[in-house]
């Protein structure tokens, strides 16, 4: 067994756990934060995406014990004091979800895209940066619209990005 202290959605968490516990298992089974989902075994679908220290990662491919001292944000921690995050609002407003299973990972990825690339996102950038998230329901059409709108709204709502936006390496 190993010990772990981290912050999850702003709250300190300590646990003793089997080292093979994946972050997604720790969130879902230990903390009962079941908004983070598992949709594949090969780190591709992105249903499990959460933020670790402000960056999107796949919780199915991360050992919980490797995140000692880290700050983790899940879909449950995105709304602040009951007010939805602008990206959550945008997904609802633009019908960016159907069955809802990929949605938490999609929204966490979308916020990460804005954090990395800023508020003015073109369709090509959004589509390319959603590479690590698979949706089977929407055909992505409305997800792309939602991400663009959510990105703009984040600027309007004074949702500061966590890092200065940077240009793509290309």
């Amino acid at each position, binding site marked *: 067994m190993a010990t772990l202290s981290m912050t999850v959605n702003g709250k300190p968490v300590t646990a003793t756990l089997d080292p093979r516990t994946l972050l997604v298992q720790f969130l879902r089974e230990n903390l009962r934060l079941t908004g983070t989902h598992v949709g594949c075994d090969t780190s591709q679908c992105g249903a499990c995406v959460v933020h670790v220290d402000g960056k999107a990662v*796949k919780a199915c*491919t*991360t050992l919980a014990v490797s995140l000692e001292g880290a700050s983790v944000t899940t879909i449950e921690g995105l709304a602040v004091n009951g007010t939805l995050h602008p990206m959550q609002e945008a997904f609802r407003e633009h019908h960016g979800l159907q069955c809802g299973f990929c949605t938490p990972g999609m929204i966490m990825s979308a916020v990460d895209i804005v954090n990395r690339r800023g508020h003015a996102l073109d369709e090509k950038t959004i589509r390319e940066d959603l590479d*690590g998230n698979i949706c089977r329901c929407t055909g992505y059409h409305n997800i792309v619209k939602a991400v663009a709108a959510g990105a703009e709204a984040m600027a309007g709502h004074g949702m500061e990005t966590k890092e200065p936006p940077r240009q793509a390496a290309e």
Partner: protein
Amino acid sequence: MYAFTYHRPASARQAAGLLAKKEEAKILAGGHTLLPTMKQRLAAPSALIDLGACADLKGIARKGRTVVIGAMSTHAEVAASADVQEAIPALAYLASHIGDPHVRHRGTIGGSVANNDPAADYPAACLALGATIVTNQRKITADDFFTGLYETALEEGEIITKVVFPLVSKAGYAKFRNPASRYALVGVFVAKRGSDIRVAVTGAGEGGVFRWPEAEEALKARFAPKSLEGLKHSADGINGDIHADAEYRAHLIGVMTRQAVAQATGK
């Protein structure tokens, strides 16, 4: 996953000490190959030595005519590094196109190079740029480092600490992705340093990353896509699978090489 013990050393030296002590131990870098393999029960290390807390394995710096990248630098960090973008933009470009954004936040250059997946991107850059892989014990040139499918010159107990890339005058990378996995079906990195021209191909070789001497020779006359016209790679020794047979991959080597040269020459 099978059970294992978990260790989180604070330095490469401590990590090496643990690695020497623990039988069947494995190094955990970004974990994006090792953990999925363990989840499928295809690997069963008795101990995992997580390099995540080794501060001495981090950092990217320009040193003279080289860029030095700490082994635990993530793909996102390499892609975003102003030093890399300025010194070897093609390397930053390559890093920005590995996997997907989430993978780039965890996957590391050290892990990628040590694993030498035949469809990984970094081996092509290392080979074409003539990188030096620095371990806790020695320096190994890329030419000597990649020895076969998932095989490298690393000895037991050896840990990559950094990768040193010499600056080149021109470089470019072009990748044709596997439509499903998004790994390189064929990736070609070209680099020109004076008269030394290197073309390194990943994703296609039965034995992993390799150089394409005929293309290098053709580019010596003039480093331009036109020099490659009519040049075809043989399908011998090229991978075939359900996504692409050897003939198609061999054809793509030519296409990607021309694209990489075009990128390197800004055309």
